């Protein structure tokens, strides 16, 4: 079911207003690099505004938000480089719990997700030397590169049962050993070790778990696209303003046609990215093959776009572009994580390439794709 236009519009206004007022670059700088690596106050505010409950059904205090509504939040995360575990907890963790959790599990966790008192992370990347195995309620193995695994209260883990079926299970932070570090963009991550950790199963093993994982990873890809669009839009705006302001040889550097044309190419990437984000948001409910084609296409294109735009923005800012003090370098680093998290660009490009757009005759193509 799609979130209605007015709701999205109101959400957009609210998110913009809040992040403009309370998540300026200096506010963020005060949070960055200090424990816990994000702003607990902002997190409480998000909860108060209902943003952490967006995905919840209306009966549970949410709005049953679709990908477009989630995208509003993710775009803001890109525009303002939010450091809170929105993607890990409010999008992925909450989505997995909603889709696979039992009634009891939902009842136990949804209220705490909504009020922000519990943060989730999703651990999907096995260490090849120690794959995660779930057996009789206990989990062994290692997961690497878990986004916000450093601050999650509970971690949802993709594992296998002894029969080799995919399973999803949940482990409390106290029951695992986390080795925490920062990603290049300043957000926290962790490698997690499970030594017979208590792990409650979510949903059904086998194909259902596999499907849930695949969908969650596609949701992550779409959310990252929206975040990437936010980064691109910010960098286009920042760079355009800088080209008008910065003078060299007695005139604004934006009067140089070579820079103008490169700014235009950045703008074209921005417009295409926005359109692809919208398209990808609309296919999440479709059958897997159709979903994957557009999601992976969008992820590959937008991932390349955000890297390219970030490279150009840094270059246009000259020496300033590589300083810690200027926001541009922080967008550059965010672009790297966006393009890499939850399966990098090459993977998605290969998946897109495997699905031909043009194999059918014209008469078999969908009609007006709006």
């Amino acid at each position, binding site marked *: 079911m799609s979130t209605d236009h007015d709701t999205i519009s109101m959400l957009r206004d609210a998110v913009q207003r809040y992040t403009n007022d309370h998540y300026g670059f200096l506010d963020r700088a005060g949070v960055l690099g200090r424990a816990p690596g994000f702003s607990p106050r902002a997190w409480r505010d998000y909860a108060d505004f209902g943003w952490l409950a967006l995905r919840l059904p209306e009966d549970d205090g949410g709005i049953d938000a679709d990908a477009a509504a989630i995208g509003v939040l993710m775009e803001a995360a890109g525009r303002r480089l939010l450091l809170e575990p929105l993607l890990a907890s409010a999008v992925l963790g909450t989505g997995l719990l909603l889709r696979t959790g039992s009634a009891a599990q939902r009842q136990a966790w949804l209220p705490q997700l909504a009020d922000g008192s519990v943060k989730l992370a999703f651990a999907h990347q096995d260490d090849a030397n120690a794959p995660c195995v779930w057996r009789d309620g206990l989990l062994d193995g290692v997961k690497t590169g878990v986004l916000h695994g450093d601050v999650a209260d509970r971690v949802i883990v993709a594992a296998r049962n002894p029969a080799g079926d995919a399973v999803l299970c949940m482990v409390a932070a106290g029951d695992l050993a986390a080795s925490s570090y920062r990603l290049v963009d300043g957000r926290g991550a962790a490698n997690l070790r499970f030594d017979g950790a208590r792990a409650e199963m979510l949903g059904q093993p086998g194909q259902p778990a596999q499907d849930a994982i695949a969908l969650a990873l596609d949701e992550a890809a779409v959310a990252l696209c929206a975040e990437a669009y936010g980064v691109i839009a910010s960098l286009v705006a920042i760079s*355009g303003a800088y*080209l*008008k302001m910065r003078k060299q040889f007695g005139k604004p550097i*934006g*009067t140089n*046609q070579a*820079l*103008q*044309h490169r*700014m*235009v*190419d950045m*703008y*074209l990437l921005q*417009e*295409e*990215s*926005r*359109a*692809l984000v*919208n*398209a990808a948001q609309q296919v999440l409910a479709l059958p897997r093959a159709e979903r994957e084609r*557009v999601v992976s*296409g969008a992820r*590959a*294109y937008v991932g390349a776009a955000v890297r390219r735009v970030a490279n150009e923005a840094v270059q246009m800012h000259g020496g300033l572009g590589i300083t810690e003090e200027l926001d541009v370098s922080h967008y550059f680093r965010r672009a790297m994580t966006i393009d890499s998290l939850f399966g990098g660009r090459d993977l998605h*490009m290969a998946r*897109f*390439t495997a699905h*031909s*757009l*043009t*194999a059918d005759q*014209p*008469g078999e*193509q969908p*009609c*007006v*794709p*709006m």
Partner: protein
Amino acid sequence: MTEDIQARAERLRQDIRRFCRDLPADLRSKSQRHQVLDKDDYLQWMRLLQAQGWAVGHWPREHGGLAWSPLERFVFEDELARHGCPWVIPFGVKYVGPVIYAFGSAAQQQRFLPKIVNNEEFWAQGYSEPEAGSDLAALRTTAVRDGDHYIVNGQKVWTTYAHWADWLFCLVRTGREARPQDSISFLLIDMKSPGVTVKEIRTMDGYHHVNEVWLEDVRVPVANLVGEEGGGWTYAKYLLKNERTAGASIGMAWHALHRLRELAQEQGPDGGRPIDSPLLSNRIGSLELRYLALEKAAYRAVGAMMDGTENGGEASLIKLRGTELYQDIAESLVDLLGAAGIAYDPAALHSAGLPPLGPDDAGGIIKDHFYNRAATVFGGSSEIQRNIIAKAVLGL
């Protein structure tokens, strides 16, 4: 955009698909093979469209149109091009017709519009000049008033199909205002007038698409002035705006991509298929991805036109991405043809003979690769389109 408009556009697309399935065999075969079409082919084609009411579908009903939304217009151009249909020659139906019904006198509307609707007169466009390409304001062709006539002198260039045209719509200079734009007027010139000379410009595909048109003391009745003297710049801008949607470039890209994948999937004599090369597969995938991005962005742009939320860069975006993508696909097609991609027989393209090497459409593919290098120049070069976005959208 309302669901009603979308539903109408979808119905139109289905109608076009049926129409394309039922094309006359010779036209179908020629266009599938990218053969050269001559004037009779084009007239037949335009009449087929006219029989559906589509050639002027975007015109208002009072002048014989179907009052299409921008979305329907886009779908029309896109879908025809997807099927590899011939070019919908725009000079009458898309360019001068709307100028005449918007700015022409009642007499001009009566005289010219029905013959455009019914394809009884063939039009050409007299805009570019040797010294006025992207900067039309620099044009030098003059029209000096002499009683009931203008005496027109000058030279136009890149005039597509002027050698087939009955009429030329033409930008001329009728005064010497401070802003050069303010002395430009819009004249309709009978190609049979004494003093009109058409000189062929052969392009690198070996064909005759474009011309120089020399105008020497050509007497044009004042009644053929559209609108006001000095108003030509306004009408020209209206025409350009009217030219905007450019769905054809997207459909053409789709058609060429489809052919590219088809050729890549054909088994070679050694049993292998080119598509099994990961590098070629990735090259095609990258082009398909650019196509996907363009398609999605184009529909957004059409939506903005319909919602009135345009920023002035939409048409440039579609033209830039569409033409540059098409050129890259065409280059990939030629590369994929291998030795057949450099074997060329222009005469065979005229006579519907076979190319010297490769599949039946190899010659047509090469011809399109050549001629479409102009796509990033004609109708406002890519450089001009980037300048437009830099100024109108980015404020640089």
